[in-house]
């Protein structure tokens, strides 16, 4: 599923593998739901920042699809990210917004409020030469 660079680089996961689950080829981000106040979070929280409840969080899977709230194609960035790359905020039906890289930098393929789908992919190469892997969003 993850495209590797000549198959030789070690993969590291950002922010961490616990943040998603792959099911039938569909990637779902994993967040948490506060049983006390109903607020959802990504990534998962331990204590609810909204109502301060402890021990009330349960893991939830976010939908595979969300809506692109806004985006930008980045031409100058930190060296671990290969420019140009695109980032966008995606609004999920569960009421959380997630910032991630998009799978395309073609302006013609991107539109506000379009549907996008989560998948795993390479987001950069870190200082140790490891391939950085995380969720990315593909326009539908």
């Amino acid at each position, binding site marked *: 599923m993850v495209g590797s660079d000549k198959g030789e680089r070690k993969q590291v996961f*950002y*922010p961490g593998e616990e943040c998603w689950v792959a099911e039938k080829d569909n990637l779902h981000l994993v967040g948490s739901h506060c049983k006390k106040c109903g*607020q*959802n*979070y*990504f*990534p998962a929280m331990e204590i609810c*920042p909204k109502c301060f409840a402890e021990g009330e969080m349960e893991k939830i899977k976010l939908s595979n699809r969300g809506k692109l*709230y*806004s*985006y*930008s*194609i*980045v*031409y*100058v*960035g*930190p060296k671990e*990210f290969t420019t140009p*790359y695109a*980032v*966008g*905020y995606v*609004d999920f039906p569960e*009421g*959380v*917004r997630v*910032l*991630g*890289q998009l799978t395309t930098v073609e*302006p013609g393929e991107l539109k*506000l409020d379009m549907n996008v789908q989560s998948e795993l992919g390479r*987001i*950069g190469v870190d200082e140790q030469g490891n391939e950085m892997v*995380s969720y990315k969003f593909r326009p539908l």
Partner: protein
Amino acid sequence: MREVAVIGVGMIKMGKYPERMLSSMGREAVLLAMKDAGVQRSDIQAGYSGTLRGGSLLGQRILKDLGMTGMPINNMENACSSGSSALREGWLGIASGLYDMVIAVGSEKLSALGGGTLPLEREDLEVSQGLVMPALYAMRARRYMADFNATKEHLAKVVVKSRKNASLNPLAQFNQPTTVEAVLNSRMIADPITLFQCCPTGDGAGAAVLCSLDKARKYTSRPIVIKASVLVSGKFEPGFRDMTTPEITVRASKLAYEMASLGPKDIDVAEVHDAFSIAELLYYEALGFCKRGEATKLIDEGATDIDGRIPVNPSGGLISKGHPVGATGLAQLAEIVWQLRGQAGQRQVKNAKVGISHCTGGGIYGLDHGACSIHILAS
């Protein structure tokens, strides 16, 4: 709370000084402010220093070579609001009655970081995915343009005004006017934000001497009174937020207007945190200078020009005067003080009696910004 006045300000010309120590820039600003105030070092009872990347104990590093040690020296970091946070804490020290006179200083040497986008905290969720500040503002811009029929020309006009004002400010980093075409044709940084729409990499320092109002008259016949001093952090919001309404600035400005018993209509001159072109438009609305969605009208009509209805960033603002992060809050204060004293030279706003300075910044996941600090001043 006691009333607090600004009795001295100073800043060095913003630019790139790779050969110069940061502490020496801060020290020069401190000396300029103390000379402007006409105070002795023995009058100063505490120091407050703001910087983002200036390192440990910068306040002590600045003040020790002036022999201004032994007193409490507080070092503040609040991203782009570091300098204004130092100012706010200095205000609190006097307003509370603890001190009669303090010095606040902000300094930064971004040239030491080698250019490019400002390095952000890697532990942050969004930074780990590749978010940089220009991209964050670019996403605000794209959404604002779609929601309110704004164009990239509107963004460019902010820069044209900014460069024009800076050309009248000898302390600004950029001194040449520009055009809409040149702004739009400059290199793309984060679509739709081009290079000229970004605050530059630069170095600088600013400082202010604050004094209780009752003692201020001993030093000056024209104290500038701090009518409001506000510092807030952004509210954590894991869900949807309207990125065209900067909640942290809306909230902070409401508090500031309440504290000063003044409203947006009373403001004669404003220095706002235009880190990127779109920011200035968003802050026209957030600070109440116009209604939602009408910021483009202000820039089209020239209402925020030096001779307009509500002049914004007569100094050139962050985009053209420069934005050495930690220095900005004190540099904004210096501009407002000069404007209210009638000492702003060619960029003087006529009959300016009330001014506002607005700092906000710090990219952090879930918050509009990390910190926002607003000051309202009156002559």
